[in-house]
Structure formats: structure tokens, C-alpha cells
């Protein structure tokens, strides 16, 4: 059976759920093989986790230059693996950097690139949702090795045992690949909350929260659910939260199992970033707010009453 390469996303030795989703999805297309790209030593701590999700092989493409330069070396390393493995497809989870890696990879392999897939059929077609999820498109790569980025939360991860046989691949980053040097990495938001882009649950606050201090209401609700925290642009523009938290057309696109919109009107540009969420809950005092058109469950009421009550209830029910 042909191999399907899955680029592994990990932070501090923890593999992201999106990678397990892709290893699961890859089984529909062939035999999943994980690819670890990073500084020397990255793969060592990841192998066992990859075996649990069915990776038959773990390609290890490690080099000191990979972490030191922006994007291009990762694409070179992944291309080296693809050239060695001749896979049926390469799957990468959608995110700003990963889409850039996928783009460069597709060119290196002379192959078609499909981004933001949300599903596959058996015939090599992928489905994508465009124009704020108003239209579903079925497309296919017609040249080379399909390079496909997949939206997080599109597949439910299912464990399966894999041999996770380690296959080292030598990487030497070209001079062109070292064109953009990373001179500093700055972490602005620490904290233990999940990342917005691939979280299973997202709680977002809008202008209805009134001021920056009140944003703790949103954070408390999010923490009760182990959720990531998002915001509407109105909240970002007001300077209450950083731009990295903006959900929408000009912010992050999320597609979680559960999205809770608190004090958000549901403007089309906001909807463009959250419309494909599986379940949507809204709290808004205006019964006419467009967010209710999308909501599976909505409460017309004052968020200062409803949201804290919900936080308490969740706490109680969790025991």
C-alpha cells in the first residue's frame, strides 16, 4: 500500500491533536507515515505517541539549520523525505506556517496543492468550503503528488497501533533555504490554554463585554471547558486583547467541535472565521443579532448573568 506522509506538529515534545487527526485521515488514502522535521533530537520524544495513532514509519529529517531559518528549510526537509518515500499524498494541517511549507513543497515536487480540505472521498477528491462556508467544492490534484493541507478538527482522531519504524533522512539546507534568518523568538502569551487555531472548543467574546477587565468572564468560561479564547475584531480594535485572538475573515479561522460566542453580533466577517464549527452556542441580549441564525442553541439575555452561570454549572456538573 502506498504511503501517505503526515507532517508532525509538536510543541515542546507534545504532538498536536491535528497531527493525530491527519494520521487517522491518512488511513483512508494509504499507509500513514509520520514526518518529523526539526532540530536534532526532536523525533526521539515523539515516536511512541505516533505509534499509538498508526504511523507505520517515522521519517526523521533533522538539522540544526531547520530551526534557525524561517519556513524554507522545513519545506526542503519535507521534500527530501517525499523524494525518498514517493508517497501517494502529503498531508499537512492548515495553519499559516504549514500552508507556506505546503506551498513550497508543492513547487519542489512539481505537484498540485490543495489547501484547507475538510474531507476526502475514496477517489482522490477533497472537499473544501469556500466563501464563508456558503459553497462546498470538490477538487482534485491533477499533477504530481497531491500536497493537501487539512483544516484542524475535520477528522476525529482514532488510535490504532503502528510500528513507527524510524527512517532517518539526511537534510542539508541549501543557501537559498537560509535566506531568512530567525534572530529572535518572542513568546508574548504564555499560559496553559489551548491554541486557538486547532482547539476543540473555542469561547469568544465580543464588544458586548464592555471593557477589557470584563474579558475575564470569557476566560473563566473558557477555562471551565478547557477551551481556547477568541475575540471579535471589535474587541481587538478596542485594544482589549491582542490581534492573534481575532476570529474571522482577517483573523484566525476556527472549526472546533464547539464554538461559544458571547456578546458577538455575528457580522459576516466574523462568521467567515467560525461558520464551520460543528456546534455553535450564542449569548446575546439582542434577539435580532445575526449570530442566532447560525446558533444551534442561543440564549437571549445579559451575558453578565448568563455566562458566569454557565461557568458555574459546568464546574458543578464536572463535579
Amino acid at each position, binding site marked *: 500500500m502506498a504511503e501517505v506522509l503526515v507532517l508532525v506538529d509538536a510543541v515542546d515534545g507534545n504532538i498536536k491533536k491535528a497531527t493525530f487527526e491527519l494520521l487517522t485521515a491518512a488511513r483512508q488514502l494509504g499507509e500513514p507515515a509520520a514526518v518529523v522535521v526539526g532540530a536534532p533530537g526532536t523525533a526521539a520524544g515523539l515516536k511512541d505517541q505516533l505509534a499509538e495513532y498508526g504511523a507505520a514509519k517515522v521519517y526523521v529529517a533533522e538539522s540544526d539549520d531547520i530551526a534557525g531559518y524561517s519556513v524554507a528549510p522545513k519545506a526542503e526537509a519535507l521534500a527530501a523525505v517525499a523524494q525518498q518515500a514517493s508517497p501517494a499524498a502529503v498531508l499537512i494541517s492548515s495553519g499559516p506556517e504549514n500552508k507556506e511549507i505546503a506551498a513550497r513543497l508543492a513547487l519542489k515536487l512539481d505537484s498540485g496543492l490543495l489547501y484547507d480540505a475538510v474531507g476526502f472521498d475514496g477517489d482522490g477528491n477533497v472537499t473544501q468550503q469556500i466563501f464563508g462556508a456558503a459553497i462546498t467544492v470538490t477538487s482534485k490534484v491533477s499533477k504530481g503528488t497531491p500536497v493537501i493541507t487539512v483544516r484542524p478538527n475535520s477528522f476525529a482522531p482514532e488510535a490504532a497501533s503502528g510500528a513507527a519504524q524510524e527512517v532517518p533522512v539526511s537534510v542539508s539546507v541549501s543557501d537559498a533555504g537560509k*535566506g531568512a534568518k530567525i534572530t529572535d523568538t518572542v513568546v508574548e502569551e504564555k499560559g496553559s490554554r489551548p491554541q486557538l487555531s486547532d482547539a476543540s472548543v473555542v469561547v469568544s467574546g465580543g464588544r458586548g463585554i464592555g471593557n477589557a477587565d470584563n474579558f475575564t468572564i470569557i476566560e473563566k468560561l473558557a477555562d471551565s471547558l478547557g477551551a481556547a479564547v477568541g475575540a471579535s475584531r471589535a474587541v481587538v480594535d478596542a485594544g482589549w486583547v491582542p490581534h492573534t485572538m481575532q476570529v474571522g475573515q482577517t483573523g484566525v479561522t476556527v472549526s472546533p467541535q464547539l464554538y461559544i460566542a458571547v456578546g458577538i453580533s455575528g457580522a459576516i466577517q466574523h462568521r467567515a472565521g467560525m461558520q464551520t464549527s460543528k456546534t455553535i452556542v450564542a449569548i446575546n441580549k439582542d434577539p435580532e443579532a445575526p449570530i442566532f441564525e447560525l446558533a444551534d442553541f442561543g440564549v437571549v439575555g445579559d451575558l453578565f448573568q448568563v455566562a458566569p452561570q454557565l461557568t458555574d454549572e459546568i464546574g458543578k456538573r464536572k463535579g
Partner: protein
Amino acid sequence: MNIVVLMKQVPDTEGDRKLAADNTVDRAAVDPVINYIDEFAIEEGLLLKEAHGGEVTILTVGPERATESIRKALSMGADKALHISDEAIHGSDAVATAKILAKALGSVEWDVAIAGSEATDARGAVVPALLAEVLGAPQLTQARKVTVDGSTVTIERVTDTGYEKVEAQTPAVISVVEKINDPRYPSFKGIMAAKSKPIDVKSLSDIGVEAGEVGLSNAWTQVASFENAPPREAGQVVKDEGDGGSKIADFLASKKLI
């Protein structure tokens, strides 16, 4: 410094966007506008020019009608434009678009090419990376800040948790995110001046691209079909009567979400 800004014309997201019978974006269905984030790219180009001198050239690959958006960019203060327009481009995918942009850049002098991070029609966010790859030029993308010092360009690249400082030598491909600056509105003077600014319209053969490399039938990906997504099923909306929070909790429990 020679600054090229990559600007795409897109259907307004406020309109009811559609695909045409050949599965490409129906560019006649909705009024076209400058891709929103590209306004930030234009502004960044103008700011760099103000700080370091030189010229700002708008580069667009798109249909004839893109002239309207190009004029608007010129009225913001850009000096001139290069517009690649050719029937054969219709239906090109991102890879082909990047190849055309690369050839177009080959026909002008440039130190930095500044793009937006993402276009609102296809939402690819891939063209800047593709362009850097085709050109073999450094990629400085997702910038929330751009600083130029001689031939060294440094950006703050937005990451999931903060930012990275990334540094490269010119010529380099940059993409910028929303919020990097405050795009200016065209002034009356700017609008008048734009009318006489040069727009160089070139065909594929003018820049040395074979028609067989681009367009719908040569794309490396094909759209097989599309359909309108079924509308979301109407959910339940209740009025808070002091128990709104617990009602949501009940709903979440019924869905096994808590």
C-alpha cells in the same frame, strides 16, 4: 528603494459571492474591490518609500477590470503600476499565479515585493511563499512590523504565541498582516494625480510566460464540482429567565460536549 506591492482584485466579501459555470470565481457576480489586506501592503510600501525614497509600483495579475482597483492604489500614492492581463490567465491556480508574478517581477527593478498575507476570495495565504520559492528569494511573511536598514530587511513574523524576528537581504518577498499600519484614504489630490499615472499593461508573451503553463486547463488542481452548502438547521433560541446558563449547560450535556 524600489518597492513593488502585489495587489489582487477580489469580489467584495459583503456581496453574495458565486462560482461560475466553469468552477472559477464569478468575478462579475459581485463588485470587485482591492483585497482588504493588500491595502495594508500598499500602505507599508508607501511608508517605506517615505522613509527610504524610491518608487512604489503596484503589480496585479488579473482581468481588465482590475484597472479600477489599480487606480485606487495609485490614488493612495503609489507611483505606477504593472498590470498583467491576458485571457489565457483565466482559471490559473495559486502556483501558476506565483509563476506569472515572478516573471513580471523579472521585468522590473525591485528590492522588496510586498504582498498581503491572504486574499479573501480563495483564502490561500500561499502566493507569497510560492513566489519566494519560484524566485529563490528570501521569504519574510506574516509581518506585523517591517524595518529596512540598507539592504537588510527585518520583520516581526506573527506566530501562534507571539512573534519571531526574521532578517534577510534584499531582494526579498514580504507579506504583511492586518493591523501592521493604518491604510490612508486617497485624498482628492491623490485621486486627481492617479488619473495620469502610468499603468503598464502586459500580456503573458510580453513577460515571457507560455500560455500553456497557466490557465484553467493547465492548472495542477481541478475543481470537479461545487454545490451550495445546505443552510444550517435552525437551532433553538430561548430567552433568559434567570436560568439561561443552566439551559446552555443542559444543551451541552445533551450533545455530550460536557
